């Protein structure tokens, strides 16, 4: 493990009944970064996370967290970890605050300040209510508060906003950013691509148990075959404008709707605007839309032929 690495996974593999769920993956998460872990359902994300946590024994490979080998120092590693499972289940007869006290004691953390932790996720008024009476979203929030106990060095979140309404989703995202600003490394899986784009600096895309792409979000966008698109707002002469634009070399596609959308290379985009101005067609507005992480995700997961490291 190199200096500056917070979590490193090497050659991790796991098969269930002869079926390879995770196939020799390598991951490196640097200290202080927010790392998104993407993949379609059944790609092996949760199995990977469970192996990182020691819940599933790998067939091969190593996991190192904060410089320590999981197989040798599991306790030391787990003291430094915060984890939110995809499906949060807690003890229904304990109150929210008793639940946090239980996990704090197990982590060897003080039980003072847990009320503030609950308040930070908006659950302070429910501190003395039994978890069994909570909605799924409220259980998720208590689970998230649990993961933050003791300011962990590494936070592992499996689909952290599943089941949350928009207000609570915002609350969780803000706390993730806050924890990261305070120095916590965040490794999270999600199928909500906008969430990954908002939170993660780097992402890995997992498909059929293999990492098919790993890079900065911006760099991944650059690697995709999908091009940035120019959205032009025209109140008049849309068809005439489309005809002019289609004639420009480097323009791949022009669609006419409420906006005229031009897919082209960078040079053609400049020429398109100039051509419209020269033709006297008035432009009411324009914007460039970069390819989304969604298009990158689809490109890498629709076919394993596109696998690039």
């Amino acid at each position, binding site marked *: 493990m190199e200096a500056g690495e917070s979590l490193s996974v090497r050659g991790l593999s796991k098969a269930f009944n002869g079926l390879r769920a995770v196939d020799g993956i390598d991951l490196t998460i640097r200290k202080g970064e927010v790392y998104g872990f993407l993949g379609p359902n059944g790609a092996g994300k949760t199995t990977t996370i469970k192996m990182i946590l*020691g*819940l599933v024994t790998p067939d091969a490979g190593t996991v190192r967290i904060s410089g320590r080998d999981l197989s040798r120092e599991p306790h030391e590693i787990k003291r430094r970890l915060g984890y939110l499972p995809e499906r949060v289940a807690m003890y229904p007869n304990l109150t929210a605050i008793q639940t946090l006290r239980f996990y704090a004691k197990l982590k060897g953390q003080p039980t003072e300040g847990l009320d503030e932790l609950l308040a930070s996720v908006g659950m302070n008024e429910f501190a003395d209510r039994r978890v069994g009476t909570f909605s799924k979203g409220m259980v998720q929030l208590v689970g998230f508060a649990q993961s933050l106990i003791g300011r962990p060095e590494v936070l592992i979140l499996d689909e952290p906003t599943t089941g949350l309404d928009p207000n609570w989703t915002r609350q969780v995202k803000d706390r993730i950013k806050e924890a990261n600003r305070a120095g916590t490394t965040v490794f999270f899986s999600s199928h909500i691509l906008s969430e990954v784009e908002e939170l993660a600096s780097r992402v890995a895309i997992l498909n059929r148990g293999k990492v098919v792409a790993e890079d900065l979000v911006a760099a991944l966008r650059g690697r995709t075959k999908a091009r940035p698109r120019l959205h032009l707002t025209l109140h008049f002469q849309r068809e005439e404008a489309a005809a002019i634009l289609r004639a420009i070399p480097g323009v791949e596609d022009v669609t006419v709707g409420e906006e005229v959308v031009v897919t082209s290379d960078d040079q053609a985009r400049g020429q398109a605007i100039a051509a419209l101005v020269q033709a006297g067609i008035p432009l009411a507005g324009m914007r460039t839309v970069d390819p989304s992480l969604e298009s990158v995700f689809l490109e890498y997961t629709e076919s394993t032929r596109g696998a690039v490291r």
Partner: protein
Amino acid sequence: MSETASRFGSLPDLRQVRTVAEKEFMDNLRGKWVLTLSLIFIILSLVVSYFGATQSGGAAGLQGFRATGAGIVALATTLVPLLALMLTYATVAGERESGSLQLLLTMPLTRTEVVLGKMAGLGAVMSVSIVAGLGVSGVIIAALAGTDGWDGYALLILGTLLFAMSFLAVGLFFSTLVAKRSTALGLAVFLWFFFNIIYGIILFGIAALAGVPMSFGPGTVIQFPDWWWALDFVNPGEAMGLFASRTIGFSEVGGFSFGYPGWATAGLGVLVMLIWAVVSTLLAMIRVQGQDL
């Protein structure tokens, strides 16, 4: 992963065991299990004491400790396994199915500590219920029917505690074998039937096949060979019966008298129950190591 081997080999951290035990106890206390079990023991033991004499032609009325003893044993050997199995069947399987076990095991504690903590916590739930239930009954019996034989009754409570531990451990072990709460419940029901009904039927069948002379009827003293008794005492329920018989001095249940062999002492009953409690807990500890969750 070698985590399993290294952790199983090291001594458990008692603070972690205590934290898990406290959680189990609190969870069951708030879930009204402790209160429910205590009330069951109070009500049924008083019913046994009040109506116990009517079975042998006596009048209804609260009996003293000596007359109540045999009825309490019959109550304990039937009820305690049922309650212990109901308390433990989902303790691992249910948590595994819901996902709370996975979260628990991401904490810095070993699987051995989880098993020991659960055993200690559930043991406390059963112990408090038994001591409170049979204790309150004992106080009522003492107040209304006299204190003669209280020491035997106290020993009976201790024996019942050990008996409960043996079935808690059995339930805990079987809970580690399955991944679903519903399967675990089916297994618990089967275990109760096995130890309370099927085991005896099998033993009597073996005796018949072996040509042991048996004639049943009131006042009959059934004589079985030593090997048969040895097999009989393997059942923790029979071990509890032996312990109770030797400590409070009854030798007749349901009209049948048992001529226990001389070597069958109260200590043997204690030993058998202890072995069940310890071995089943150890098996549960071994079983959970390395399980993928």
